[in-house]
């Protein structure tokens, strides 16, 4: 490791570190040539997380919880079982805890130490979730972080931040928007944003509704 903190491992023309795109390309070529990875597996992994596993999964969990009190109770009592029962299993979702927002308590999830995030229900974490501003500030000034998302909560609302320091992954159940009585799960799921399940946002109000 260098004294100045730069990364000197990879030099290309001019002695500068290789741009990351070239570096990753070289790494892939090397690992494929060495036989450590199968290119088809790489493509399959990309396709899976780019197109199939994403926050719409979590939205369906939340919508179910909004519409089905028994499911909601189960989800809060045993998040792992209740989420897996809907088919959302897999890497980074082996152990799940769901936490529900109420009029008094707003939940927010962070991983200050790295990028832990419930992939099977939310997909890959957004870049800001893994960034220093979010990781550093969520545990000390979450209201200022919420302001960056345009969210302002009453001063008397308890903010409950969950730092994912182990293999437990947390899913926020946002509050159900008003004026959605009788909505189907599918319609409700459209109101559930990714950010609302991290706790940096709220569920969307129905169009035309007063927020």
């Amino acid at each position, binding site marked *: *490791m260098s004294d100045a*903190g730069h*990364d000197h*491992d990879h*030099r290309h023309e001019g002695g500068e570190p290789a741009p*990351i795109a070239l570096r*990753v*390309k*070289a*790494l892939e*070529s*090397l*690992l494929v040539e*060495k036989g*450590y990875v*199968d290119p*088809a*597996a*790489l*493509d*399959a*992994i*990309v396709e899976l*997380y*780019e197109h199939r596993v*994403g926050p719409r999964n979590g939205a369906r969990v939340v919508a179910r919880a909004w519409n089905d009190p028994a499911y909601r109770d189960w989800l809060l009592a045993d998040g792992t079982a209740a989420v897996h029962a809907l088919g959302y*299993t897999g*890497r*980074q979702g*082996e*152990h799940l805890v769901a936490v529900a927002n109420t009029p008094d308590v707003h939940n927010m999830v962070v991983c200050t*130490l790295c990028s832990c995030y419930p992939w*099977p229900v939310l997909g*890959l974490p*957004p*870049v*800001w979730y*893994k*960034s220093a*501003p*979010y*990781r*550093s500030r969520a*545990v000390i000034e*979450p209201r200022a972080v919420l302001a*960056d998302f345009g969210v302002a909560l009453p001063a*008397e609302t*308890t*903010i*409950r*931040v*969950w*730092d994912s*320091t*182990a293999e*437990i992954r947390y899913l926020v159940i946002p509050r159900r928007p008003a004026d959605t009585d009788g909505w189907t799960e599918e319609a409700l799921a459209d109101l559930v*944003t*990714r*950010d609302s399940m991290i706790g*940096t946002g709220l569920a969307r109000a129905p169009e035309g509704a007063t927020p």
Partner: protein
Amino acid sequence: MNGAQDMGGMMGFGPVMPEDEAVRFHAPWERRALALTVAVGGGGVWNIDASRHMRESLHPADYLASSYYEIWTKGLERLLLAHGLVTAEELAQGRALEAPRPIPRVLSAEAALAAMAKGSSYDRPVATPARFAVGDRLRAREMNPRGHTRLPRYARGKLGTVEIVHGGYVLPDTHAHGQGENPQWLYCVRFSARELWGPEADPSLAVSIDAWESYLEPATP
């Protein structure tokens, strides 16, 4: 270790930049960095705690100047080097110069998808009963190990309350260093922000961490 990864409570990084949830990647190389990290990790040469430790072992200036997929890439390169699977010269040239070493498995597309769908459970039976129960007051230990740990600095020495007893889980502190799974009871411990950050902290805020039993001691020893 007290590396750059342990950033809870740090200041000076600027605002959080929200982003539309439809965005998955910002450049094609990010797709490949993800897939390589996951696929090679699935090869079974190292475990997830070892890979986290390698990332946090980056020089702090490098860690903080890198995007997270860059951190993954640099961590992956170092793991490959540390395990003798590639040489620095091979990384620089992007082509094989030596014969590969055997690794436990190379995932096919089908196997990769099966592994992703299955995941890897980290809960393990623990023979001894849990030392703490929900509602117990306890203190996170003051500890500053040179190796991997998942007890963030901001919680060390602080008084909290057990909120959830999660069960027995693999201990990252040993698992990252090839010293075994050593499962321990894992607790969700809640702290008031005033306990963590002092009397000027937001009185409406509480923060929890998940902490293994050896990270914790009774509030009054």
